């Protein structure tokens, strides 16, 4: 099914409470189908998708070029009993889809816990994350307001999307936004001057161009 004819292998991971729709979200993204049945994920799983990515960074040397990206989308069990297994997989993912259910206030409250799980277990202290409020189609059962969620996302400095795996709304956009963040992070990680922990002497940065705010403090 897969071959090595791609330019990047990007590993993303979906996390969040049980039943928020991580599996259906990924199924919608990879196969563009919706399965309304709830089948709890056993531990971990992953889906794959090949996408074409167009570099949007105007400063980068790769601007305007298109690349073949192979996405490995890890799906994790939300259930507590699999927690030790799922969190162990956090460290091998390059970006995260932190999901909650718009019809469940509790799943939204748990976003905070998931964030600290990420900080502890992801590959760096501030990995690329996209906050996703799923089940946006169930407007009459909604418990979490957009403003509320947006505020939380702003607090963490991460993008927020309201998606629906049932209708497919915003699903692609959420994943592509995350991919974009990861792609930019790669460039930054490679181009940043070697970490100088004692004193960030700017003079040492050999020929460093415009000093853009470094997101990558890892």
């Amino acid at each position, binding site marked *: 099914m*897969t*071959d*090595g004819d*791609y*330019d*990047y*292998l990007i590993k993303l991971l979906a996390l969040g409470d049980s039943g928020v729709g991580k599996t259906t979200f990924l199924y919608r993204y990879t196969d563009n189908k919706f399965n309304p049945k709830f089948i709890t994920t*056993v*531990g*971990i*799983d*992953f889906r*794959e998708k090949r996408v074409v990515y167009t570099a949007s960074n105007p400063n980068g*040397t790769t601007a305007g070029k298109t690349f073949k990206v192979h996405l*490995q989308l890890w799906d994790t069990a939300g259930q507590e*009993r699999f927690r*030790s*297994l799922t969190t*162990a*997989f956090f*460290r*091998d993912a*390059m970006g995260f889809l932190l999901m909650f259910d718009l019809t469940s206030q509790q799943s939204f409250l748990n976003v905070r816990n998931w964030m600290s799980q990420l900080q502890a277990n992801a*590959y*760096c*202290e501030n990995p690329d994350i996209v906050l996703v409020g799923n089940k946006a189609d169930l407007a009459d059962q909604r418990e979490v307001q957009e403003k509320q969620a947006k505020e939380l996302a702003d607090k963490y400095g991460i993008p927020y999307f309201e998606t629906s795996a049932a209708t497919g709304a915003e699903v692609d956009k959420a994943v592509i936004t995350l991919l974009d963040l990861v792609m930019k992070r*790669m*460039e930054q*990680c*490679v*181009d940043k*001057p*070697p970490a*100088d922990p*004692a*004193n960030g*002497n700017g003079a*040492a*940065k*050999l*020929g460093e*161009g415009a000093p853009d705010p470094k997101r*990558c403090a*890892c």
Partner: protein
Amino acid sequence: MDLSFLKVLERERVLEVLHRDKHLRKIEEERIRKMKCDLQDLRRKGAKSYARQYGERTCARCQRPLGKFWNTGAVCRGCSHRICSRCRVGVADWKCTVCHAYREVKIRSGEWFLEEKAKKFSATKDKYETVGEKLLNLYTVQRHIAVVPPTPPPHLEQDFRGKFRELKNSKAFTQSMEDLKDCFKSHIRKFSNSQHDVRGDLLTVDLNQKGTCFRYSTQKSLSDTDISKSCSLSKRESLPNLFKKSKDSDHEGSSTGAEEETSFSSEHSFNHRGSIGSIGTESGVFEGILVTGEMELAVAYNSGSSCLEITVGACRNLTYGNSKKKKSHPYVKLYVLPDKNSKLKTAVKKNTTDPVYNEVFKYNIERHLLFGKRLQASVWHSGPLKRKVFLGEVLLPLDGWRQENSTFQGLYWYPLCPKTETGTAEYNGH
């Protein structure tokens, strides 16, 4: 981390997923291997030859000559080499072809991610190993054990133990151990007394020798003559070093501030201090410098052109050459030991502890002459007033080379060692 908390069916399910992941990983590994091969080919094109004079103005990549007024080339930000206009990628913020390719590979292979991850989880032994891989391996091993009972027949073990006790109690054994100790003590004393300027690392060799003798004697009690033989053996081994050492001192005496001499003398003085430090503490501290980090090297022998191709990829996590100012301008110096005239140097990288060189060096030598030769790749901090500070080295034996005309001899990260002979011993196994 294991899967013991899962029910049998659940575990099967997870392992199925992990097997799928393994399949994807295999494809990815193959892709990365190809990518690195291409990079290596590109590097090789710009190989600097020992025979070529360093002052000559040529493009470091295509080796075309550069003019004095026209087509002068410009210095690449990545590798500090002079590059002609044809070997550049990008317009304003250009890099040379190799630096560009190196950067691309680092991004596309996911190396950037592994490096970031390694910073946070520094305790991980193998940074390439994913959690899934580890789990899968663990489970495969466990299953294997379950099928094949590893317990050996009990009588064998007892037999062995009994013999060991016998050996331990035997008088000859204890006697020889005492003799051995005395012999070495006096030997070392003699050594350090008689040879004022003896290189400390010789002592390390002796100590090592002692270790091996002890081990040997547990199998077969050594007679006194055997012991003295092994002592003289270690002494004989050290003679070339002594000779080399005196040659270095001569150089030092005639030093007039020329670059060559300075580097010799500084190297010599650090040799001395470094090795003493290593005996005392084994940690490699000298002049307040703790050797840290690794060097990325590839060595290949090209039988077509009868030359040794040495690629210096990069260094990482180097210690600071100037620890007070937290500064380092590292460069790598190569010798094909024992030939001290074979010096090759990379460019000096300013203000970094993770320099990227991407330089290929050619050393013309007949294959059979590689026997007994060692590659010494040392990292030096180029301080002000030509002051050099030793930051660590890698010693690789060049004999036992089996890869005939290999097109790609992979780049490997070698840990940097302080200047001791123990460093060599460590690599003999590779």
